[in-house]
Every structure is written in structure tokens, then in C-alpha cells.
């Protein structure tokens, strides 16, 4: 029974992602972009969830891991012949080295993990507001450096000429991979220890759990997944530093909070639901025909207004998110009634 429940907890988000991908595969190519984007968001939000959800500590800095992953995968996969055109000041080996799609993603994950480790060694000692501001500082620093340091990337330019290999299939595989990693982690010994520190730090450390070490483990793992997601993202569309900054931080945090930050199911549902809303509003800003006769034409910028209001409203009305912060569970067919004797049915064997 417990195994069945665990299977359902993993299967439900995976199934949701697969359904979204299948749906995205049959629609027209212009709407397909929305689906691919939503799947990439799932990867980023799941990465965020691995740390924020399990530890209960807010991080405003995860988009810096995404940005570093995007930069790593991007710089290494632009064809060498096109590098001088968009990145004339590139340093040393970066100028000549070009790797394939999968190695670039692996390297992106590696860079994300290493950077998260370096930052986390110091930052994981902080908690509360100091941690929030410090992670914000990391975001500011990475944004600032990537923007102006042209030896490692395009600087202010947009990352063009990156092979656009992220199609619906690759985005779906990446999202499923991220979900599996997050699931394996939260079921593991380390994940459970970290969740214990989230629920009651004093009791957890009295039981011999090092809060610092467990947070660091989660931070590094989520840094790796975030870097990987950044690699996927840069293979989808030409990014620049502005697209990996405050707006993305806001929207991914909104997705996590709206879905329910303390469960993997919440992270996936939140990412897909907000993406769906976002795509709908984006269409509506361009003029959307509803039911054939009513044209909805919202002014540009309505999206962020609606999403900001929604995020604030959810935080106020239901801080645990639309999933209640619980994992997916199968509806029970039989009412578990412990007081009355079990019904004598011949089929009951479990």
C-alpha cells in the first residue's frame, strides 16, 4: 500500500508532464512554443522546489544558477565559426571548443552544482531574512558579471546561434528527469532529514541532524538541476541577461507558491497552471477569439498584473498553495473506518 502511494506520488507529476507534452505535440507549431516553454518552466520550478520546498528557506538566487547553466551550454554549443560574430572577446579555449547537445547540458548541470556549492558553503549558515537578502545578492552579482564580462559570453548581446535543439520531446524528457531527481532526493535519507529541519529545526538538530550540511546538499542538487534547466532553456530560444533576472525569479517563485511550495506535485502543478494562464493571457494580449464570436483583446502587460495579483491572493487566502502543499494521492475507494469491523467481502485480500 505504501509502495503504491509512493508510485502514485511519482507517477502523477510525470504523467501530467507527459500529457502536456503529448498535447503539445499535436497542436500547431505556433502554440507548441507555449507547451515547450511550460515544460522548461517545470524543470526550473522543480529545481527551485528541491531547495525551497524541502528546506523551507526562501531563495531569490536560483535564477543565477539557471543563468550560469544557460551561459555554459550556450557558449559551448555555438558553432566555432559563428563565435567571433556574437562573442568577439571570448577567452582562450572557449573560442575553439564546441560540444554537442547532451554534453553541453551535462556541463551546465556541473557548473550549476559547483557554483551552488561554492556559494552555499558560505550562505547556508544564514537563515531567515539574512538568507533572503544574501541569495538576492548572489542574483545581482551573477547578473552583473554575465552582463559585462565578455570573455565568458555575449555580454549585453542576445545568445543567438545556439542550436535550437529543445523541442517538445527534449523539454519533456528534461522535465521528467528533474522530477525523478527531486523525487529520489525527497524520499532519500537526506531529503527526509532536511524536511525534518523544515518542520522543527530545534528537534531536528537535537536528533543529530546538521541543518547546515543538509541545506548545503539540497542547495547543490538544486543548483545542478537549475543549471541543467538553464541549458535546456538556452537551447530553446535566444536568451540574454535580462531574460534571466528579476522577471524570471518572480514568475518561478510565483509558480512554486501558487502550486504549493512544500510538495513536488505542487511545484509541477503550479508551473503548468501558471504557464497555461500565462500563455492564455499572452494570446489575449494579441487579441484572442473566444468561442468564435467574442474577441478578447487585453492591453500588453496584463499578464504580470494578473499573475502578481494571483500570487498575492493565493498567499493571503491559501498560503499552502492550490495543492495544499501535499503530494498527489489516489482517491480512496473505500472509506477507512477503523471503528466498525471491516466489511466481509471475499475480494479483500490486501
Amino acid at each position, binding site marked *: 500500500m505504501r509502495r503504491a502511494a509512493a508510485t502514485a506520488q511519482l507517477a502523477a507529476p510525470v504523467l501530467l508532464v507527459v500529457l502536456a507534452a503529448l498535447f503539445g505535440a499535436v497542436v500547431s507549431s505556433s502554440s507548441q512554443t507555449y507547451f515547450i516553454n511550460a515544460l522548461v518552466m517545470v524543470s526550473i520550478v522543480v529545481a527551485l522546489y528541491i531547495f525551497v520546498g524541502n528546506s523551507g528557506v526562501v531563495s531569490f538566487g536560483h535564477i543565477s544558477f539557471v543563468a550560469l547553466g544557460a551561459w555554459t551550454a550556450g557558449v559551448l554549443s555555438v558553432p566555432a565559426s559563428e563565435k567571433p560574430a556574437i562573442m568577439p572577446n571570448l577567452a582562450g579555449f572557449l573560442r575553439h571548443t564546441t560540444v554537442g547537445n547532451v554534453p553541453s547540458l551535462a556541463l551546465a548541470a556541473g557548473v550549476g552544482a559547483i557554483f551552488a556549492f561554492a556559494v552555499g558553503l558560505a550562505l547556508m549558515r544564514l537563515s531567515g531574512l539574512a538568507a533572503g537578502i*544574501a541569495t538576492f545578492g548572489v542574483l545581482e552579482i551573477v547578473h552583473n558579471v554575465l552582463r559585462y564580462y565578455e570573455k565568458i559570453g555575449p555580454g549585453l548581446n542576445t545568445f543567438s546561434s545556439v542550436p535550437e535543439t529543445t523541442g517538445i520531446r527534449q523539454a519533456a524528457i528534461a522535465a521528467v528527469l528533474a522530477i525523478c531527481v527531486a523525487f529520489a532526493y525527497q524520499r532519500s535519507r537526506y531529503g527526509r532529514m532536511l524536511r525534518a529541519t523544515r518542520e522543527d529545526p530545534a528537534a531536528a538538530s537535537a536528533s543529530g541532524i546538521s541543518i547546515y550540511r543538509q541545506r548545503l546538499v539540497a542547495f547543490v542538487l538544486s543548483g545542478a538541476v537549475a543549471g541543467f534547466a538553464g541549458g535546456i532553456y538556452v537551447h530553446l530560444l535566444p536568451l540574454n541577461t535580462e531574460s534571466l533576472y528579476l522577471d524570471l525569479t518572480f514568475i518561478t517563485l510565483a509558480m512554486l507558491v501558487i502550486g504549493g511550495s512544500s510538495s513536488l506535485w505542487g511545484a509541477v502543478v503550479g508551473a503548468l497552471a501558471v504557464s497555461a494562464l500565462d500563455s492564455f493571457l499572452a494570446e489575449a494580449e494579441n487579441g484572442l477569439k473566444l468561442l468564435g464570436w467574442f474577441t478578447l483583446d487585453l492591453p500588453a502587460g496584463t499578464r504580470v498584473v494578473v499573475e502578481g495579483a494571483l500570487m498575492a491572493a493565493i498567499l493571503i487566502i491559501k498560503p499552502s498553495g492550490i495543492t495544499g502543499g501535499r503530494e498527489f494521492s489516489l482517491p480512496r475507494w473505500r472509506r477507512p473506518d477503523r471503528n466498525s469491523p471491516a466489511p466481509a467481502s471475499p475480494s479483500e485480500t490486501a
Partner: protein
Amino acid sequence: MIVAILNISWQTLADAFSLGGMYALMAVGIGLVFGVLRLVNFAYGQMIMAGAFAIAFGSQWNWPLWASILLCFAVVLALSLAMEWLVFRPLRTQSPEVMLIATFAVAFLLESIALLWFGSLGKIATSLASLNRVWVIAGVDIRKISLVSIVVAAACLTLLQLLLTRTEVGLHMRAAASDFRTARLLGVRANRVITGAVLISGVLAGVVAVMMTVQTPLVTPDFALDNTIVVLAGVVLGGLNRPIAATLGGFSIGFASGLLGGALPTEKSQYLPSFLFAAVIVVLLVKPNGLFTRRGAVERV
């Protein structure tokens, strides 16, 4: 002497003081809201932005100066009241992190509303332009506004400190801040007192809006956004438990940022935010409770 060693001109020092004064003024408002609500208000910058837009519209409609400043205060106060009723009050019992995310959402909401209504190009606010005049003292340009902002910051801080420590309302505010429920049991009208504190911080935001439009007349939806982020870091750096510590933190980060801006060679100056935030992180690691907190002042859980 130090000035000569670091090769910093008096001009840089004067500019750093001026920036420090402005940031200190912003820090007073943020520190007050934290002191009373235990809430770091990310949306403070957007309140300043709203006030600045009010001034810009006032000058566009050719209103007299006092009228547009009045409009600015009306807008900012209405906004703080709305925020207190719609956001802060329902979240009173939540953890500081949840409130931080909520104000982050409100900040984005307000910015995008401004973007929707006013466009990204911005408007020009022409008010108090006479304050922008330059005095030359011993070869150093000092703008009137920088002196005014330091004086105003000091005055606001003093008034606030007097209010908090010498009046009954201040006592009630501090009581509501340290234990909301017990304060109510003892007959403090805690909600009313907190609303009062939010209104005061709104007034301060209005003051900042007036001062900032003097220095940067072009008002855009991301007006004061970068400054707020830096001031927030400064406030946490200084220590949030006392308004004085928060204000000093705000001043320090403004001063440091002004000095760094002057001291860095031109080709490095674009990395100014990196140096600034790296310094913030280092200080937070050494003193997570803040630079200017009293010894033993630990945040209660």
C-alpha cells in the same frame, strides 16, 4: 588623510554623502515598517514610484507645486492603507519569509500596473528644481538637495525615535511589534497602531518621492527599483531591530556605493553592483544580525 591615500577626491566624498543621505531616508521608512510589522517591504520602492508619478502628472497638468506634492502624499498614503488592509493584515500571522514573498508579488504587481497605465517611457516631473542648484565650496560641487536629504533623514529619524520611545502611541507600537496578541489583551488597539505605523512609513515614502524627483526627474515604472533593492540590503546589513541601526545601514551602503563609484577605474565601474553585493554578503556572514545591533540582540523566534 585617508581621502588622499585612497585617491578619492573631495567631490567623490561629497557625492557619497549625498547618496548616503538619500538611502538613509529610504531606510527609515523600511526600518519602521519592519520594527512594527516584522515585515520587509519589497514594495516600498513602488510606493515611491507611485508618488513620483503623481508629481509628474501634477507638473504635466501645470498644477502649482504644493498641489502636486499634496497629490503625491495622497496617492502614497492611499496606497499604503490599501496595502495594510489587503495584504499585511491578512498575513499578520505568517512567517517572515511568506510575507517577504508576498511583498515581492505586490512590488511586481504595482510595477506592472504602472507599466500598463503609463508606458515604459516615463514622464518628466518638474518640481523643486531650485533644490538642484549647485554650491561650490572649496572647489567641490555640492547640490543643495544632498544637504537637504541628509538633514531631512536626520530629522525624520529623530522624530521617529522620539515617537517610539517618548510617547504612548510609540509604546503601543513597540508593544504590538513585540507581541501582537498580548498587546491586544492589555488593551492596545494593535491593528490601529500598526496602521498608524504603515501610514507614517507612507509619509516617508512620499518625502523620498519628492526628493528623488529632484535628482532624477524622469519617472519610469522601474523608478527607485534598483535603489530599493540596495537599501533593503543595507537595512538588513545595518540590523533591523532598531530604526537607528537600519538607518545607519542604509546610509553606509549609500556611502559605500558612492565611494566605490568614485574610486573604481572607469572600466571597472560597471561591476559596482557586484562589489557592493559581495561586500553585503561578507558582512552578513560575519554579523548576520546586523552591523549596528547591540550585543546580544538576537531575533526572537
